[in-house]
């Protein structure tokens, strides 16, 4: 939970505008937590990124180049220093009695799920991973190390044609104790509907524009159902992981 100046160990573009950066790191974290990265002097606010994995003194971030901040990150050379705050947020919950878990990721939304998968695997929980991409899959080998992994692409070039929800519909959800999801909003909505219908627990990772990342500015709220109807919860503090059934998106 500190602010740290860290070194870039490696930074590679694994596919056009999809990059993987490794940063020196010596703290533990929970899967689903995120960090806030200062992206040079030409941007003000830090950018939030899920923790993709932590091991051997390295923190990995899987990121997509979108605007000024991620463009700056793309240009970071090995050995350069970078200011990071984290780990932040609540992280995924793994209920005690979980024995089979389903992982559903879309695009760069697969980022936090690898770290989660490692943890599930470590706990001896059986997993199946469904990953959906636009055109070309990435990081699939990393998922395959820990679980059976099914792929879909919207172009149909690799795996099933369509979104990951298409594969999901063919799966018997009843076979799983819990579903974990991260990806674009429409995907999360379908996930909520499907798991709701089948009565399966489901946790999803949300994104919202952030200011501080530590719960102080109230920039990052989303509507969460509660006993009084709903209230605004902070994605950076009460999230980014929420129970799908409570999320009003």
């Amino acid at each position, binding site marked *: 939970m500190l*602010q740290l100046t860290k070194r870039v160990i490696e930074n590679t573009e694994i596919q056009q505008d999809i990059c993987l950066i490794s940063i020196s790191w010596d703290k533990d974290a929970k899967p689903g937590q995120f960090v806030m990265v200062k992206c040079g002097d030409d941007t*003000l606010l*830090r950018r939030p990124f899920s923790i993709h994995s932590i091991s051997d003194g390295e923190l990995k971030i899987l990121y997509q180049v979108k605007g000024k901040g991620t463009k700056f990150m793309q240009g970071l050379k090995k050995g350069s220093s970078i200011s990071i705050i984290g780990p932040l947020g609540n992280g995924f919950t793994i209920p005690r009695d979980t024995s089979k878990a389903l992982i559903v990721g879309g695009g760069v939304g697969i980022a936090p799920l690898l770290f989660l998968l490692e943890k599930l695997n470590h706990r001896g929980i059986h997993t199946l991973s469904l990953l959906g991409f636009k055109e070309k899959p990435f990081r699939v080998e990393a998922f395959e190390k820990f679980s059976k992994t099914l792929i879909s692409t919207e172009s149909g070039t690799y795996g099933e044609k369509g979104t990951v929800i298409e594969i999901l519909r063919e799966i018997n959800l009843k076979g799983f104790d819990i579903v974990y999801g991260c990806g674009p909003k429409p995907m999360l909505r379908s996930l909520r509907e499907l798991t709701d219908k089948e009565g399966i627990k489901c946790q999803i990772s949300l994104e919202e*524009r952030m*200011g501080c990342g*530590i719960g*102080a500015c*109230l920039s*990052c*709220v989303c509507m969460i159902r509660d006993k009084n109807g709903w209230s605004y919860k902070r994605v950076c503090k009460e999230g980014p992981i929420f129970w799908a059934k409570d999320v009003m998106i």
Partner: protein
Amino acid sequence: MGKRCDDLELSINIGGKSFKNPVMVASGTFGFAEEYASYMNINEIGAVITKGITLKPTYGNPPPRIYESHGGILNSIGLQNPGIQEFIADKLPYLRTLKTHVIVNIAGKSLHEFEELAKRLDIEGITGIEVNVSCPNVEDGGIMFGKDPQLIEKITSLVKRSTSKAVIIKLTPETVDIESCARAAANGGADAISLINTIVGMAIDIRERKPFFKRVFAGLSGPAIKPIALAMVHRVSKAVNLPIIASGGIITGNDAIEFFMSGAAAVAIGTGNFIYPDCSIRVLNQIKHFLKENGYKSIREIGGISGE
């Protein structure tokens, strides 16, 4: 034997209270302080100014609530806060443990609400009340209190009568005549003036072809507004003889020095807290460094510029 930096006189006075140094954190950017506890020693700064408190719990505006512009940020938080009752029950206990001054920012929808808020905050653990006059006056068709010097004077004297705390009036930059607003606060009995609050701005989502914020307009803060804030602080410092707590794009010690030289007694770090959670401590250290390097003994020596 005191520490080396004890040679520097950093303390300032507001409303008869002594602050150990002139670096504060601005309302709405530091939550209720506990959020920052693991990033810095909060006791080192001169004061914490809380998020704005209303009488009733306030939901705030729908997300997205923040946008980064060139050199600045727009926010549309909309005064989300738990309301005075929960503030006193849930937030004040932690604030009371701090060894620095706590200033509570309040926002009312009517004169009566300001009065009520001030009265209920006249309790232990609070040094001052910062009155945010940038809120709409529902009794008067929703026009901002802060645009009307007469209303500012009324609110000030009402709050002043309702509390034993130092009363700080936080002016809005949305006025042509910031001097009249400051004078109104002084006439009403204010102990200090705080400025500037955010400036009305807007952003467009050109892909979606609509305003980025659901409420269309939002408040601009950060380095982009620093020159505007400096000009307003300077004008107010010439108009009234009250200490000014300046905010507007202060990220570094040099920014703070600019504000002291233009007439501020203290500075409040806002947007800077998002960039570096310990921004206020950095600014404080850089101020000390500047004073030492330039042979100043006291923060008061650098205040006020000539040159006109």
